[in-house]
């Protein structure tokens, strides 16, 4: 079953995609790896932050793995690369 979720882009990921947020349709039992892959296909420039990105679903950290996410309609997925400035 497909579901609509909002992707929120922070810091470098907002710069790379040119977006602060977008709504995408994905399978509700997509894994975090597949979801990231999907985002990379949509925004190829995201590839460079793959190894540093923190992905959070419903305000909770999820590692990039093969575990299904069980997304629900309207869930927020945050893409959070680290900031290092001060």
């Amino acid at each position, binding site marked *: 079953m497909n579901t609509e979720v909002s992707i929120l882009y*922070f*810091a*470098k990921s907002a*710069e790379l995609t040119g977006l602060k947020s977008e709504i995408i349709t994905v399978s509700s039992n997509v894994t975090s790896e597949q979801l990231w892959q999907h985002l990379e296909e949509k925004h190829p420039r995201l590839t460079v932050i793959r190894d540093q990105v923190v992905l*959070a679903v419903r305000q909770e950290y999820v590692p990039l793995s093969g575990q299904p996410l069980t997304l629900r309609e309207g869930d927020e997925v945050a893409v*959070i690369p680290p*900031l*290092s*400035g001060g």
Partner: protein
Amino acid sequence: MMDDEIAILKTKLLEKEGELADLKRKLDQMEKGNSRLTVLHESVTDLPPLKSHTTLSNEDIMRYSRQLLLPELGVQGQVSLSNKSVLVVGCGGLGCPLAQYLAAAGIGRLGLLDYDVVELSNLHRQVLHTELTLGQPKALSAAGAISRLNSAIHCVPYHLQLSRENAIQLIQQYDIVADCSDNVPTRYLVNDACVLTGKPLVSASALRMEGQLTVYNYRGGPCYRCLYPSPPPADTVTNCSDGGVLGVVPGIMGCLQALEVLKIASGQGSSFEKQLLMFDGQEGRFRSIRLRAKQAGCAVCGETPTVTKLQDYERFCGSAATDKCRRLNLLTKEQRVSVQEYKEILDSSTPHLLLDVRPKVEVDICCLKTSITFHLLVWRRRNLNRSRC
């Protein structure tokens, strides 16, 4: 009658002038006294242990009365603050407000570390430095401001670059470390040194209109490496000197950092050992992400660590431990045109096309009249979208 009044006023004026001169002399002496007390450290030495307090003096009670009233702090919490030492790594946009609030609140000892000197472009966010301290080491400038605010704080300014050679010796002398640095290699270095010496690391960062905050290596929470095992490729890192930052944003993050340091130092614990707080100044919004506990497989805080002593962090990250000179990808000398060569082209009226591909803000700051602006980033993005459709 009139003459009498004039005479009286003149006498009064003289008296006031005398008082003023007296005050100026006193101020001068105190400032000199302060600068004698705060010796600038250019290398790491072992400090005498912090004098331990069990009670508050009358002056302490007056000074801290408004926070002593809080049941969360109380006398015990205030005494505890006065017995704690905090190392502030970086006296910039985060470190300045952080150090200011820690000093105001009565932390016992403050180590202020920065290798840099105060520049004019720092003053919009590094609020302890002033026009009068331009060119001074930031550590010294910050220490001066701190001692004027609270002379009871033992302030230790370090004008040096934190390195694999000195970090352990320095950090093990402090109870809590605040990472207020401006570059990736220093963030890994401070993290590893805190894990190896068992110190809580209150870490914040800021860029443009955004900020992040987490407490690492504290009560079973993750360390920086648990969250970011591998450093970002150097050319993907944007720092404040090329990305820009609105001064109040690191100010907000530095204040939040101060709050967490004070909670830990007074024994209340922190709210962020398994949380990543994000601040979006554009939307005026805070978000908090729940993090995992520390990772068994972490290279430094895991069960079988591979990092058991400090490394070469500049090599590990492929970038220098500064926010200044980024590694640039320049064209070869033959492919470039110098300003002198371009002047010749202009002077000889050689037909040419000059494209200015810099971002809009840079063009707004200054541009050549003979150029046509053509924003490379915008074009690249558009092109990317087009190729996708």
